[in-house]
Every structure is written in structure tokens, then in C-alpha cells.
């Protein structure tokens, strides 16, 4: 039985840039989230750093390469590797995105949206159920930030997301920043979004910074502190039912102490 995290747990997305800063004193964190793909190869260096971290902190896995909604089902080889990594670190849960990332043997290395239609609910739920069974531990799906909507969509994003998770019997990785980004780009109410989410199924939340472009579009850049509006949305969601929280910071990454300080703001805003 994998270990669990307390709902108030605060974690940080582990990035390569952090490796050389890790050591005495070790940061005051409840856990780390790793990008699964960074540790799926047999390269010795990443495994060395992973070993150091897992001796001291619980680790959860967050993937970007599952390709849940690609033309082909998720690769068995890929799932085997993720399952082995999850076993190695005794991950409380594994997460990836409700999206597609490649087709016809090519990888876009991007999290791409799909039209929100009932047919894809069935497909996504069946595949997510399979993934969770294959991994043998809780699996969570993350909502995207997106910049395009499809004319073919017949459902809202939040209804699509909720139905997939509920039918798959898996969990939500609720990215609060993504909800905010998409709500601004597509002009919907983030409160409507949150209202549709069964909070008892939330495994974890993500918070991150974003960038507003001159034309008003918000890009999910993860390159700066969390925006005030995102903190407010986070606080309202957390107060209804708490969940473990991870700060993601992927570009212009600050010193580890600064990232931890930004994460610790969560305790203030949700109090």
C-alpha cells in the first residue's frame, strides 16, 4: 500500500537546477514532485539525485509523456517504466495530463487539448482506468491550461474533466493556475469550474506563475511567482476541502529558498 500525504502537505516540483542546492540544511518541505520522464532512463546522474531526495522526502510522480488521448493507447513500455519508478520511490500517487502529446510516432512535447465531446470521455476514462490498474496505485489527471477551443466541443471543459475522472475512478490533479489561465483565455468563470469538481477525488493541487501577453492572452509559463488572483482561487478551493499542494517553477527558476518561501505563502493565503 503506497504511503499517503496529509491534506495540508506542501511540496515543490524538483528540477535539475535544484540539485546543487540540495543538502544541509535540507528545505522545509513535506514532499517533492518529480517529472517522471526525467528519471525513466538508466542515466546514473539523475538517479543519484533521486536517491538523495527519496531518503528524506516522500516523492510523487508527475508525467508529461503519457499521451492519454493520442491516436494509440499509452505505451506499455512507458507504463512499465513509470510503474517501476513509482515502486522505487514508493510514490503515494502518479499523475499526468488529460491531453495528447504526440501522434504517428512523433512527440510534440506539449500538452495539447482535445474537443470536449462525450465520445472522448469514454475513451479517456477507459485509458485512465487502465493506467491506474497498470500502475497499481492512485492515478490523477491534471487539467490543462489551453489557448484554443474547438468548434466541435459540445461540453464544457470542467464537465469533460469531471466525467473522465469519475468514470475512470481515478483522481484529480487540480491545477489552480491552469483553471485561471484558461478561464481568462476562454472567458469562463473559474468558480463554475471548481464547483463541478468532486473535491473528495482531488489528490493534489498545482500552483504556478503565468505571463500575460500584450494581446491579453495568458501563457502558462511557470516562470514567476504565483499571481494574486490564482492565490485567491487556490484559497477558496482549499478552504472547502484541503488537498496537498505543489508549486511548479520551470523557467527563470529562483534559488531553492525563494521557491520554498513562495510555496509557504500557501499557508498564509489559505488560513
Amino acid at each position, binding site marked *: 500500500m503506497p504511503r499517503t500525504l496529509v491534506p495540508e502537505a506542501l511540496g515543490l516540483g524538483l528540477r535539475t*537546477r535544484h*540539485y546543487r542546492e540540495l543538502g544541509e540544511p535540507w528545505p522545509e518541505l513535506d514532499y517533492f514532485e518529480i517529472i517522471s*520522464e526525467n528519471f*525513466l*532512463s*538508466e*542515466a*546514473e*546522474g539523475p*538517479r*543519484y*539525485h533521486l536517491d538523495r531526495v527519496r531518503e528524506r522526502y516522500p516523492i510523487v510522480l508527475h508525467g*508529461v*509523456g503519457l499521451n492519454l488521448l493520442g491516436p494509440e493507447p499509452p505505451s506499455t513500455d*512507458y507504463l512499465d517504466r513509470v510503474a517501476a519508478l513509482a515502486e522505487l520511490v514508493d510514490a503515494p500517487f502518479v499523475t499526468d495530463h488529460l491531453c495528447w502529446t504526440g501522434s504517428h*510516432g*512523433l*512527440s*510534440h*512535447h*506539449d500538452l*495539447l487539448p482535445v*474537443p470536449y465531446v462525450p465520445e472522448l470521455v469514454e475513451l479517456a476514462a477507459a485509458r485512465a482506468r487502465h493506467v491506474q490498474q497498470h500502475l497499481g496505485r492512485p492515478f490523477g489527471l491534471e487539467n490543462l491550461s489551453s*489557448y*484554443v*477551443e*474547438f*468548434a*466541435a466541443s459540445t461540453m464544457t471543459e470542467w464537465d469533460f474533466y469531471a466525467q473522465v475522472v469519475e468514470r475512470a475512478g481515478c483522481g484529480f490533479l487540480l491545477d489552480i493556475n491552469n483553471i485561471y489561465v484558461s478561464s481568462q*483565455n*476562454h*472567458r469562463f468563470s473559474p468558480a463554475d469550474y471548481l464547483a463541478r469538481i468532486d473535491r473528495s477525488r482531488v489528490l493534489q493541487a498545482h500552483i504556478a506563475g503565468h505571463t500575460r501577453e500584450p*494581446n*491579453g*492572452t495568458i*501563457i502558462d509559463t511557470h516562470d514567476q511567482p504565483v499571481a494574486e488572483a490564482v492565490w485567491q482561487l487556490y484559497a477558496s478551493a482549499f478552504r472547502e476541502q484541503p488537498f496537498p499542494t505543489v508549486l511548479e517553477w520551470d523557467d527563470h527558476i529562483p534559488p531553492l529558498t525563494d521557491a520554498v518561501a513562495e510555496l509557504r505563502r500557501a499557508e498564509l493565503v489559505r488560513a
Partner: protein
Amino acid sequence: MRTPLDRSTSSLRADMAAYDPVLVDAAQPSPTLSSAERLAIYHRQYWFRLFTVLQGLYPLTARLLGYWRLNSFAAHHLAERPPRGFDIEAIGDDFAMSLAEQLPEDGTIVTDSGLRIEAAAVLDAARIDAAFHRVSRAPRSEPLRPGPADAARFGDSCLRLSASVALVEERWPLAELRMGFAERHGDERVSLLGRWPTPRHWLLVCYVSRLGLLALDPLEAELLGLLQRLPLEQALGQLESAASPADLESLPERAQAWLARSVRLGIWAGFVDAR
């Protein structure tokens, strides 16, 4: 900002203005952006992400050429060899080779800052970056620790270099410069210093969590190369024929010391049948 969507990548901008009408019709416009403009966000992110990864994997080459110039070579490389699989850093595996295809060795190239530098220096830089990339991704392996029982193997076998080790040759002072980028991040440009009178040789070793760079005597580098192609006795014979008269007297002793050091450093992964 290293955004690719500028002068040297105007072809990418042209691509973005010409999406398949079916795709444009499938996407809805927003109050402020057309369908094509919304699709272009993904297009831009795709290139931005891949260029940024290549810039990170080839920091020496990027700093010599400048980011715009590197991006133009990267665009060609990525169009020829688009990413496959979950490992995004695999896009760096063949980049030095792709650069060599695009850049004639005997020519010169103008960098972002308007300087004209030898293409051979850029290709050296790319090969050095590629060596750092390769050894950093090496799997864990036990080094060869030959004992008395292995004596016969030296007679009929070559040695296989560990995947975490690379022999690096440079014609310009580049390897130590590259080593500095392994310890720190930054965007600062570097200037190409003068070409060495003769090539210099380095042993690059990835020790679990850090990289080591050891200077090699030219004959030592020659020996390490020969041992990968010939059994020991033949390698030593060939080394002797390559040595200058001044080196010959001390060569046996030095060769023994170099061989012992290579084993001590754990650079060999095993024997390979010489046939």
C-alpha cells in the same frame, strides 16, 4: 529572451500564417485572437521548447554562435529529425552531426554579434557539447578492474570505453570553457581564443553526480584510442611507430603509467573481441 520567432526564423513565421484551412476551421477564434493566432501559440511553444532544450544541451556552441544563429541550425535539425518518444533531451543526440552536415568544415560563419569565426571551431564546440551530453546520460556500469586472470584477454581483445567517458580533441581552447558551463548557468557570450598550434586532448568522465576533465598527453590520447581498436601489444607497437625519437626512450614506462591510470580511473567497461 531566446525566442525563436525573430529574424533568423522568418520561415517559421511564414509557416504559422499558412495553417491547413481544416485546422483553422476546427479552432474557434477568441474575442481578441483569430483561430490561426491561437494555433500559433502552440506552434511558437513547440519551437521555443525544443530550441531552449538544444541551447541548454549545447551551451558552448550556443554561446559561440549566438542563440539566433544556433536556432537557425536547430530548426533545420529538428525538421529533419523531429522528436520521438518521451525523452525530450534525445533531440540533442544527433545535433553535432546535423551541424556538421549544414556547416562546411573549411568555411567561416558570422555569429549573432557580427564576428566571423572558423566553422571548424564551431564544429569542435558542438562535438565537445555532444560529448558532455552523451556522458551525462550514461547508465550506471561497473568499470573493468582486470586481474591476473585477464592477462590473456589483453592479447586478443580490444578495450571498450565506458559510456560515461569520452575522449575529447580540441583545436581551440574550448573543453575547459565548456566545463565551466557544467557548473553554472547563464547566457553570456564567449569569445573564441586563438587556435592551438597542435590539437589538445582531454578525458571527460562523468562521476555519478559531477563531471571531471583530465588533460591527456597527445601520446596518451593516441594510446587510449588505439586500445579501442587493437589488442594491447599491437596498440603499443603502433604507438611506438607514431612516437618521435625523443619520446621513444621513455615511452614504455609512460605507456604503462597511462594504462594503469586509465584502469584506476575506471574508464574501461570491458573487453571486446579484436576479430
